[in-house]
């Protein structure tokens, strides 16, 4: 009964939305602010990756919010799961030798790869979030490989705080120097397609990378710590 009603009303809503999308041209040129972003992006930011320019500079405030959301999730999670040994019947089992050996080899590489991604965020695809996620995946691998693996919550938390503060701090510096929060005029813009270019964008993305890496690792650690260990 519930299913039928649900399907009926979902179909109704779906039809309305389909009728909307039928009117939206697919794959056609765009207008509006994006033109500005594409056309002036290099001139104003010197970052090759326009998406990064938008994410960190034009819409840097969104990204600050985004970082906050992730921070919030990490905080909320550790608030809710604090000293909760909720999932007692699940045990972390001993992993295979293959996994452990592979982890030992891969983990440093993963770290380097993640760092590479967020350091080159303004030049190549990717950035702080992607790099951070890659790093966190390395940490997850460690959790999978070693039953007794623990993260140092204190260090993670400090790292995450410092990274967050530096992001907001860079923003405030912009306010101080260019009368605009998060303005990209603290550092020189530099040359296009060079590592040291695009003003504060790489700095911010490094901070974001650290922050995301620390937070996601913390999330994983919090989730895992709800299970019983032996």
């Amino acid at each position, binding site marked *: 009964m*519930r299913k039928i009603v*649900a399907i009926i009303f979902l179909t109704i809503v779906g039809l309305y939305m*389909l009728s909307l999308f039928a009117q939206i041209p*697919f794959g056609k040129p765009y207008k509006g602010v994006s033109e500005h972003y594409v056309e002036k992006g290099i001139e104003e930011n010197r970052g090759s990756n*326009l998406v990064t320019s938008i*994410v960190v500079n034009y819409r840097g405030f969104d990204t600050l919010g985004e970082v906050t959301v992730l921070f919030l999730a990490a905080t909320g999670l550790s608030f809710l799961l604090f000293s909760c040994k*909720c999932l007692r019947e699940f045990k972390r089992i001993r992993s295979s030798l293959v996994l452990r050996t592979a982890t030992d080899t891969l983990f440093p590489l993963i770290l380097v790869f993640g760092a590479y991604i967020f350091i080159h965020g303004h030049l190549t695809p990717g950035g702080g979030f992607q790099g951070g996620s890659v790093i966190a995946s390395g940490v997850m691998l460690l959790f999978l490989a070693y039953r007794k693996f623990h993260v140092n919550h204190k260090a993670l938390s400090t790292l995450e705080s410092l990274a967050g503060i530096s992001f907001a701090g860079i923003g405030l510096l912009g306010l101080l120097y260019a009368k605009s929060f998060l303005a990209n005029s603290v550092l020189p813009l530099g040359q296009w397609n060079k590592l040291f270019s695009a003003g504060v964008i790489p700095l911010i993305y490094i901070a974001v990378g650290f922050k995301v890496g620390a937070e996601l690792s913390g999330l994983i650690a919090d989730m895992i710590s709800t299970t019983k260990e032996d």
Partner: protein
Amino acid sequence: MVFFAASLLLIFIGLYAALVKRNLIKIIIGLSIMDTGVNMLIISLGFVKGRTAPIISLKELFKKGTWLVDVSKVVDPLPQALVLTAIVIGVAVTAMALSVVIRMYSVKKSIEIDDFKELKW
């Protein structure tokens, strides 16, 4: 067009799960599917046929002799930037939902909706 339809379908599959499934984890999965649908939709909104990614690593993408990029050669970068934010937010919500479910499980040893209908009327 097919991208629109597909992502709409994803959204509605996710919604359907939230409307019908009795298992809390399944509902969270539904929400994630819904998120994915939305993200796909956003990306497909920015797509332009025959254009390249918004990463200006080649000189020929510029207009002659300036730092001004030729708009007609690059897809819309803004939806890609937006979707990044949307993905992260989706992750955060999922994490919160999962942690709440873990706690719920510890209280009642169950993750069925029927055991969580105390608040009503």
